[in-house]
């Protein structure tokens, strides 16, 4: 075993932490070099970029975490985007009508998100429709409800008293830390989390072992609803308004956030899923902000989107073939070891 492998083995936690930090750091460095060389500005050019990063990060992190509640357990809930629209439009407007400001908007949206998610989960455990098909149906219903409300105006936070807090950096950090603490406890240390992991391993065995897989599924849907609602509120705070959509357009939000979730799940191999998804979201946000600087040299929105999803595609190709690469690596090591052993034996024999 080489010295490096030895060090790796002895400091495994340190190495895992370094790997988790290294991925967003590398993305930032690559984008920074490209931005500086091509556009003449750095990726994080000013305090405006940091504020944008934090706001978009918490939104993307929460949405990806919401998707991660169900996806690893084999439930692809395509209705999470519409849950976000419904929760934010209804919850946000109720909070605004009660003059509860940004915190009220956040709490009411969360509450409505839990209800919307809970209803989807309730239908799933009772009707046992394929989660993806159920999600598509629920998407259409939730989209129509949110479209028909409030004169199709959605949620407008522009100029509303008390909503500035949603762009306050300290508030964003506090919310992010709270979400991390709660979700780490739920996923890693609560009986809900243990059961979820057991179900993730084998649903039938978990059921046979006495785990209430239906209650667990319902709770996953509720947690996902709350998380995507938080994501929607911070996204709306940046864009000032959330315009309702129809025709399953809310699904685009789901697929947009699949990227940070996929990176996060990959990073979670070396850390816990919450930190992994945070690091994954951070990496994707650095990519998005870095690409946004290319607007200065004439790159269109469409091209930026194209580059972003091409990176995702490359990442997915790597993920799908990761085991093959590892296999080839192991093979090389084995061959080298065999060669070295033969050489050693030959040397001994010659002597």
């Amino acid at each position: 075993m080489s010295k490096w492998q030895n060090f790796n083995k002895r400091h495994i936690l340190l190495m895992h932490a370094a790997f988790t930090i290294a991925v967003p750091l590398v993305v930032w460095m690559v984008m920074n070099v490209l931005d500086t060389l091509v556009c003449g500005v750095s990726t994080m050019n000013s305090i405006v970029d940091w504020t944008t990063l934090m706001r978009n990060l918490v939104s993307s992190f929460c949405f990806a975490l919401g998707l991660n509640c169900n996806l690893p357990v084999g439930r692809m809930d395509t209705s999470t985007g519409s849950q976000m629209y419904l929760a934010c439009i209804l919850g946000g407007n109720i909070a605004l009508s009660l003059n509860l400001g940004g915190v009220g908007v956040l709490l009411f949206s969360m509450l409505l998100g839990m209800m919307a998610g809970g209803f989807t989960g309730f239908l799933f455990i009772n009707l046992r429709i394929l989660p993806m098909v159920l999600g598509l149906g629920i998407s259409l219903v939730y989209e129509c409800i949110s479209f028909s409300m409030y004169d199709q105006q959605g949620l407008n936070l522009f100029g509303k008293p008390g909503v500035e807090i949603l762009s306050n950096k300290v508030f964003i950090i506090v919310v992010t830390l709270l979400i991390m603490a709660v979700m780490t406890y739920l996923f890693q240390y609560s009986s809900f989390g243990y059961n979820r992991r057991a179900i993730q391993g084998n649903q039938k065995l978990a059921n046979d072992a006495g785990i209430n897989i239906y209650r667990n599924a319902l709770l996953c849907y509720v947690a996902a609803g709350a998380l995507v609602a938080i994501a929607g509120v911070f996204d709306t705070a940046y864009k000032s308004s959330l315009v309702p959509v129809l025709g399953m357009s809310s699904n685009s939000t789901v697929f947009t956030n699949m990227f940070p979730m996929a990176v996060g799940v990959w990073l979670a191999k070396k850390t816990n899923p919450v930190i992994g998804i945070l690091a994954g979201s951070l990496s994707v946000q650095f990519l998005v902000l870095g690409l946004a600087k290319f607007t200065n040299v004439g790159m269109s929105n469409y091209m930026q989107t194209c580059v972003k999803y091409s990176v995702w595609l490359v990442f997915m190709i790597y993920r799908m073939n990761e085991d093959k690469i590892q296999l080839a690596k192991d093979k090389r090591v084995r061959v080298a070891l065999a060669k070295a052993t033969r050489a050693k034996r030959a040397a001994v024999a010659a002597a």
Partner: protein
Amino acid sequence: MRKNIWKRTATLFLAGVMAVISLSGCGGASSSAPAAAAASGSTTSAASSETTVPTKQFVIGVAEAQANDEVTTRRAYYEDFIAPNYNVKFIFSEVLKDDAAVKTFIENCIDSGADAIIDFKSNSAQMARMCEENGVIYTVQGIPDMSPELEDGNFPLHTGWVGADNAQVGNLFRDWLEANASADGKEGFLISTSLAPQGNVQHVQVSRSILEGLQEKYGLTYEKSIEDLVASSETTNVANDKGILITLYPGSPNKETWLPGISSLLQTGKYAMFLSSGQTYNQSATAVKEVEQAFNIDIKVASIAAFSTTLTTAFNTKDANGNPSVDMVTVKPSSALNACLFAVTYNALNGAIETTCRDADGKPANFRFQMISITSPEELAKTEGWDNKDTGTWIAGKEFVDSMLVTKHPDITPEDINKIMAGLNVDSISAMMG
């Protein structure tokens, strides 16, 4: 057994909650603006005209391109005011993303017995042909030069176009730039062309008007034609003979990359003017405000708008420099535009397409409407209550609509309708509204 009871209770509870949610959403403004109130509440409505409702009912389909204040106002105007006063039934589309969606909508309208289509999305010979084949009248919100096939084709049931008077909109921007832009134009102009490259009629018209306004103000010669510039889906620096920095930024505000792109461009500090062809002043407000605060600069914002609480909020919300969030808006007199579209369509439905919808060459007529410019909270206050869907106070009341109808004025011509529309400005509307 206990499990079943729990399940049923939970089902009932959740179903109840969802029903309450749905119903609370379905309520709202439409119920607060009943048809009768809308008609009588209008300053220029039934009070001064006869109130006889035509006996023959027409069905008109309305193809929408977006969902915003303007669309909500239009819907309220048509449903609450026009429908009961002229015995017309309207079928409204959802947001139509492309021509295929418009086609499907028109087919559905035809199946539902529609007599006419008012098209806010496409400006297309294909739609005109489909209407032609089914004996349906076709009216477009837009301008003829955007659809040469429609202009040159033979479509006897196509009434014509109702679009913004580009020259007038250009003048509004030019006048505002005259007063607010520097003499040499060194501050830089960022223009959001929004969905103009995708053919959104309003965005194309306004983008062209802004470029024409800048051209007039600085006597510029562009290296490319304005049509080509507006149609570009890339971020484009407009090459011109005076070296003035004019950047066109296309894209939908709903795309995740739109706002970071705007922020990134503004952070270069090269732009002190942000002009938008769409209603984006509220979506860009946070990004503009943050850049102003971080770089201690003043960015002036001009945009399209509709009368709404969002607009009032924008004029009453101060940026880092103590100026309103938006410095100038050009507002469509929404009900007047919709009244014109309705009148043209209604005249055709009453068999007067040849006399009321054809120009001197016998081609479908080109009707124009005037935009209104608002530059301060005081000016906005003057327009308070105009096109208010909650109170049913419309700029285009019954007298105004009647003045464009062949059923009331058998000798009316397209020129007369254009004269009526050209007469609309803040003063004339103020006088009309009393």
